[in-house]
């Protein structure tokens, strides 16, 4: 059975709420029923078949083709199955997803993996601000799963992050790991200003020396036993993180943010 494919007819002028088109909600529905689903498009509601050409039948394998950054809430609360986005994704990609896989061949907008609970989210391009963050006003961001960004991440990656891992092959913007509660953020490229601002616990694993605030204290250089195991767990990913030459276990450890509870750590490869 071929993948259920939604091919965008033309770029929408207004934003589209894609949250109804997730595997568990489409399970058991025929194509006519799926075509009749109404999506919020700006101030209007439009049928799926007004916006997309629909082919394929497998609701557990969804492809969104010709995607643009106006398609918001792709994979919201996804609970198994896979969604492949060919093109860019809008805001709130994989928000609160519980299980399954989402992959995006282009860029993702704001709040990708926002309050994500489990599963794998892969973005081949760049991710916007608040990657893995919490909705405004909420106290806990991403709570589990893995986010892989092959490009760069915007500002506030991992804001309020509670658990899980965010892997960024490129650079991370300012305030990476801000207000982090726990979890792991690994950045192969460079990081911006105010790294780990007000982080309480958690790990920022860096390949390059960051510009650290005065509220992070040097704890010395160490060989940490958990790092080889962490890198071994990346082996299943289609990523530079899976390459054996990416792994290391010797790091400079900085503790902080001492302006908060100060139980977080920044580990920098040496």
């Amino acid at each position: 059975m071929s993948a259920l494919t939604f091919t965008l007819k033309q770029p929408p002028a207004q934003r589209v709420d894609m949250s109804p088109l997730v595997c568990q909600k489409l399970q058991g529905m025929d194509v006519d029923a799926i075509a009749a689903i109404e999506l919020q498009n700006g101030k209007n509601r439009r049928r799926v078949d007004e916006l997309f050409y629909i082919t394929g039948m497998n609701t557990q394998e969804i492809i969104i083709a010709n995607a643009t950054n106006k398609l918001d809430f792709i994979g919201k609360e996804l609970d198994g199955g896979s969604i492949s986005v060919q093109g860019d994704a809008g805001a709130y990609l994989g928000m609160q997803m519980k299980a399954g896989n989402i992959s995006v061949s282009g860029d993702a907008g704001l709040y990708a993996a926002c309050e994500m609970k489990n599963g794998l989210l892969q973005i081949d391009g760049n991710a916007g601000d608040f990657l893995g963050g919490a909705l405004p006003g909420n106290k806990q961001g991403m709570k589990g799963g893995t986010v892989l960004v092959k490009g760069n991440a915007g500002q506030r990656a991992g804001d309020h992050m509670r658990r899980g891992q965010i892997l960024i092959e490129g650079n991370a913007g300012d305030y990476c790991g801000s207000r982090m509660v726990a979890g792991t953020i690994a950045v192969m490229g460079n990081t911006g200003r105010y790294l780990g601002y007000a982080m309480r616990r958690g790990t920022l694993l860096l390949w390059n020396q960051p510009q650290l605030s005065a509220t992070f204290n040097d704890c010395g250089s160490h060989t940490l036993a958990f790092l080889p195991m962490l890198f071994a767990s990346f082996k299943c990913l289609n990523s530079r993180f899976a390459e054996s030459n990416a792994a290391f276990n010797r790091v400079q450890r900085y503790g902080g943010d001492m302006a908060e509870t100060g139980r977080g750590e920044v580990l920098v490869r040496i």
Partner: protein
Amino acid sequence: MIINGVTIDKTFAEAFPMKATRAIITAQNEKWAMISAQAMTGFATSVIACGCEAGIERVLSPDETPDGRPGVAIMIYAMGAKGLAKQLETRAGQCVLTSPTSALFAGIEGGKPIPLGKNLRYFGDGFQIAKKIGGKRYWRVPVMDGEFLTEATTGMVEAVGGGNFLVLAESQPQALAACEAAIEEMRKIPNVIMPFPGGVVRSGSKVGSKYASLGASTNDAFCPTLKGMTKTDLSPEIESVMEIVIDGLTKEDIDKAMRVGIQAVCDLGAANGIKRISAGNYGGKLGPFHFHLQEIMA
């Protein structure tokens, strides 16, 4: 049944259901992994007074361990889940956490999870860090030599304890040599431990005692110095009896271990002073697992 001049008694070993777990100890090198493992499995020969029975299952190469360092697999058996959990935690805290360069991991996937490092983390006094890697939860506890890395839980499974056989020989050195040969072969069998010192017991016990305060006492029927003073089970030429006790994850595991152990003893044969193989039981009324010697060796 006679094998190489050794009589295999028509009797059986009687064993009991137990709870078991396995843990993997790793360290900078095999020497320190073994030191930690020996400490953790020390004073654990019998549930009668030790609270558990524990032993080293085997040495693990770096590619067999979670952190890629040399390691040792140990197993702990106890009569109940609560007792097993307590023994595991106490021993891990005093013998592995304290041992230089050590790390501690689960050795059984599945089963009921019981705390391994889950509570040891509090030694970190708030500086401990949790990491979920590959779906498993680990704790990094800061210690004076760096970090103690431990998996949060390990699995507890149903198991069998108390498989045994007795080696009856013409002399003490011959009995010991036969038991050493048996243990060497039995240690190659997975999922079993022989918890007594070096795997061998020289003081097999019977249930009860003339002293009301004791639940067990010397097995006088198999004591060679009492041949003329008690209802003996020994013929005149027997001068020494030693026992090998086996705990295993399943009855089949113990079957295999007993078979290779008895075979090793029989290979030495009557020419080396080995006269009989027997086994300890309680008439078949106490333990649900019966290991019939002649069936095992058939």
